[in-house]
């Protein structure tokens, strides 16, 4: 199994506060890795390091290496647009831009400088299909994306992330704001897309992690406590504290 991203001894400080104490973790290609742990454990912080979403925070200091396909994403003169083309992101709240479905999904392509209208059209359709929202949007691509339901908006956002053909998609609790049916639809979509993309997902929904992920990493107080295949983690984790967390005994 090839690792597409690798995190090596990553430490992160906000001023005096060290939020990550040296994380080592590899993300296998075309798998879904779930990052779990109690609130404030550093999982979202870690996720945001993976496409440099933390860069602009004042007093932040990140050390260690984060490699994408073997290359350090924190190297000087790295093109952030290029990086985020490779490492896309979907947020907790569906955040479509306040314009049409088509323009939402085409947005990244336009930023990336693609001008070929036919290619853009083709990509938009493909991406909406991949995100399993094509049937519901194909006749109303001009409609404002905000006019759709929460679950639909989130899938439009997934389509938008997929449009630039990223290698990795980061998902920050992508279904926590959705009802169970929409959540389940998103889960299904992710299961299908796993054969093409690598996903790294922060989630508080442990059942969801057990259903859709291939690998689980459990973080607590800025440390990686344990990681392993989802089966290992949910059936026989090595550490008792992992079992306690998974059973909701704290967190």
């Amino acid at each position, binding site marked *: 199994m090839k690792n597409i991203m690798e995190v090596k001894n990553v430490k992160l400080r906000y001023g005096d506060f060290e939020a990550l104490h040296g994380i080592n973790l590899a993300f296998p290609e075309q798998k879904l890795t779930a990052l779990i742990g109690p609130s404030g454990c550093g999982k979202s912080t870690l996720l945001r390091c993976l496409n440099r979403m933390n860069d602009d925070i004042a007093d932040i200091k990140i050390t260690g290496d984060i490699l994408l396909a073997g290359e350090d994403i924190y190297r000087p003169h790295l093109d952030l647009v290029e990086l985020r083309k490779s490492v896309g992101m979907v947020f907790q709240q569906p955040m479509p831009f306040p314009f049409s479905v088509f323009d939402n999904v085409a947005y990244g392509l336009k930023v990336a400088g693609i001008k070929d209208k036919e290619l853009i059209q083709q990509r938009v359709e493909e991406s909406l299909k991949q995100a399993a929202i094509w049937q519901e949007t194909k006749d109303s691509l001009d409609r404002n994306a905000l006019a759709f339901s929460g679950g639909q908006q989130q899938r439009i956002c997934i389509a938008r992330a997929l449009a630039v053909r990223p290698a990795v998609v980061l998902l920050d609790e992508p279904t926590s704001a959705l009802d169970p049916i929409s959540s389940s639809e998103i889960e299904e979509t992710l299961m299908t897309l796993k054969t093409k993309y690598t996903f790294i997902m922060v989630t508080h929904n442990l059942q969801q992690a*057990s259903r859709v992920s291939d690998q689980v990493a459990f973080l607590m107080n800025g440390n990686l406590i344990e990681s392993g295949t989802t089966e290992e983690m949910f*059936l*026989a*984790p090595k550490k008792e504290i*992992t*079992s306690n967390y998974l059973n*909701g005994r704290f967190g």
Partner: protein
Amino acid sequence: MHEIFLDELKKLNTQFMEMGVLVNDQIDQGTRSFVAHDKKTAQKMIKEADVVPKEAIRIEKKALDLMALQQPVATDFRVVISILKAATDLERIGENAISLAVETVRVKGNPRIPEVEKIISQMTHEVRKMLIEVLTAYVQEDEKTARSMVDRQEVVTANYQKARKVIIDGVEKDSNAAVASASYFVIIRLLKRIGDHIVNLASWVIYKVSGELFELADPKAE
């Protein structure tokens, strides 16, 4: 919230152990009544044969409720599943013990073969010891003792083979022993089967402790 789960789990464990004690008594009473020709005890056992299966259902229901309502994972999941599976093996052991009583009621015929009855006593002693040890291993999560059950069952199997030979020799010496010998064959087979189920129980101890699924019983050993 988790206090409730742990509390329920504790109750479940206690019920499981109580069932183990009941079954252990059944093995003892079953073989003792056979050797002593004590049909009265045997009949009482048969009359009360539904106690253990009822207990098993109570345990299974509680385990299934916990699975469905509390959705345990990881260690907690293994504890509940291992009880669910081990309760089935325990119930089978109980059934075999009842079959010992049935055979006691059915058995007719003298003369008997004292040497066989001595081996039967040995086998009984061994499987009862094994059952207590495996139940203790369950509670203490003692994987080593659980794994040792494979070797222990080999002793039971060896005694089983030895008994077969002694029975055949006994019938050859005195053909009047043929009637009793049919029962002897049934009894030693039941005791051996009880041992096989104890080995299965041991494999659930291992699953509970390590998550490893293990085929301990040798299906070829007969």
